[in-house]
């Protein structure tokens, strides 16, 4: 296989390759280190950390759904102090690039979290989980309101070291994702993580009650991939200069390629890790092969490529869909 330049940049920070873990799907990397070297992937996006230790929600917290799963974990975690002392220190010792995801219930909490991270070694980026209920606004989710989103981003950006990019993680559960994207960027977000889970629900037809202890939960996995690709596409079209970390149901290298083509500069592999703990390194390998197969020698050349007119796309011998579903009839119609 010809070597492909897999390096990527997110808001000025260089990464050796574009495959990251996803927040909430990798804890803080230690458990996955049994299956692959966490320093070998682009970065480890940690589970969203809050100020205080947190027990999360009642069980059941999870249900498998067609090509996906739904969860209501409730951000169980050790709190920022234990995280810094134990988890971040461990990631740094491995040489991993840590993307620390933070979550709060108020602007003050977000600001305090950013202050705690400030000046700490081993943090490549900060990802702000804004899909949290605002305790000061009747539990309204920050990510669903442009002003609330921009206030959070502003609070985090102000309290974060200038060399550390701040990415806001957007929720797809909004009328127009570009409105929130623009508000976050205007407030100082250096990039955007697209997308968080979709709010969903499952009812047990035997007990005739909601399955999840939290009643509703976040839907993830390949089932949401087309939604995620659409969101990345829309955000990249609206803000072509803003780097995107894309995620939502990535299972294979070709799935990752789809996100890059839509405009993401890097991707997170999330739910797939639950079923395939070595998935991030497999996706990376498959992505590199897919790029090589298409005669592409630099990953950065495909970022946002799908937005350009089809003439300049792929060599004729490559199969643009990557599977057997080549629309032969359509090709025949187009022939002179």
């Amino acid at each position, binding site marked *: 296989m010809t070597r492909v330049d897999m390096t990527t940049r997110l808001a000025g920070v260089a990464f050796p390759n574009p495959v990251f873990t996803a927040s909430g*799907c*990798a*804890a803080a990397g230690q*458990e*996955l280190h*049994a*299956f692959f070297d966490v320093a070998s992937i682009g970065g480890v996006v940690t*589970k969203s950390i809050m100020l*205080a*230790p*947190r*027990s*999360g*929600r*009642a*069980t*059941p*917290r*999870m249900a*498998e759904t*067609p*090509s*996906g*799963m739904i*969860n*209501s*974990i*409730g*951000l*169980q*975690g050790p*709190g920022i102090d234990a995280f810094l002392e134990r988890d971040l220190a461990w990631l740094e010792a491995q040489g991993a690039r840590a993307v620390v995801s933070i*979550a709060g*219930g108020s602007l003050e909490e977000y600001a305090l979290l950013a202050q705690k991270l400030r000046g700490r070694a081993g943090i490549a980026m900060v990802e702000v989980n804004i*899909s*949290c*209920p605002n*305790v000061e606004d009747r*539990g309204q989710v920050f990510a669903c309101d442009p002003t609330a989103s921009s206030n959070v981003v502003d609070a985090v950006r102000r309290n974060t070291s200038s060399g550390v990019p701040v990415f806001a993680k957007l929720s797809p559960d909004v009328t127009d994702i570009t409105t929130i994207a623009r508000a976050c960027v205007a407030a100082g977000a250096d990039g955007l993580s697209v997308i*968080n*889970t979709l*709010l969903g629900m499952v009812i047990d037809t035997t007990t005739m009650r909601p399955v999840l*202890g*939290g009643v*509703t*939960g*976040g839907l993830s*996995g*390949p089932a949401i991939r087309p939604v995620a690709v659409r969101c990345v596409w829309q955000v990249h079209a609206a803000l072509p200069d803003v780097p995107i970390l894309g995620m939502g149901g990535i299972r294979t290298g070709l799935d990752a390629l789809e996100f890059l083509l839509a405009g993401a500069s890097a991707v997170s592999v999330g*739910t*797939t*890790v*639950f*079923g*395939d*703990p*070595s998935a991030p390194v497999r996706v990376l390998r498959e992505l590199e092969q897919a790029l090589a197969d298409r005669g592409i020698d630099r990953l950065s050349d495909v970022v946002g490529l799908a937005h350009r007119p089809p003439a300049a796309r792929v060599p004729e011998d490559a199969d643009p869909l990557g599977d057997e579903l080549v629309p032969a009839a359509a090709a025949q119609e187009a022939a002179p």
Partner: protein
Amino acid sequence: MPVQVTGEVVSAKRIGAYTAMTVTAPGVPELARPGHFLAVQVGGPASSMLLRRAFALYDMSPRGVYGGTVQFVFAVSGRGTAWLAERRSGDRLDVVGPLGRPFRLPAHPVSATLVGGGYGSAPLLPLARVLRERGCRVSFVLGAGSVDRLFGHLDAKRMADTLAVTTDDGSAGERGRVSDVLPAVLERTDSDVVYACGPMAMLRAVSDIAAERGLPSQVAVEESMACGIGVCMTCVLPVVGDDGQTRMVRSCVEGPVFRGDRVRWDAVGTVPPDAVGAITAPGAHR
């Protein structure tokens, strides 16, 4: 450290209502101890079922005709296990294991009672073997709804010093629950320690009976899991730590074997308000 390997099905045997499946899994049996479990991918590489199914180890053979093999037992309870039950010799299976913390073994030759409900008896059989090797006296109490849902009673009969069987419908052994006969068995065998695996309600009853008699108990729980390796935080239950504080701990990495007296049985399925980090304010963080 667990490994992820692609194994091959060696055999799939129907035993009553269950299937006992043997799979080659290089590297797994060498590390496996009684109480460890496996996480098995179901539905093939393009499956719409993303999550692994977790099964306790019933047998681990580092050396044999097929190299290292592991065996696990399951009941068909959904599409994933239905797919698994259709696997035949030679089919490939992606396996992660061994996972979890195994049963702790007594340092001295003691009298041990092993209590199994349904196919929950599967991990108790390799445990019995190890206990016997250590000179322990082993007594079994096995129960199920009906005789076809009993598992391991023939093995147990061969291996154990005593065996008591109960079924809810009386189709084998005494009619009733394992908890009905357990106090008398503990008395008669002068047991020093109790091990159990089975449904949560049974584990609670067994833990209570052991605690009433001042006996240590070790129970292997079955909580629904998405990953089995400690990253998803779905399989938690409230457990009291050495410091006396209750935490929501992961049954996949901190369990599945717990001290019976440390599990907050009355609070399983909830986050008790005195747990470390219990949510006191309303909110719906996903």
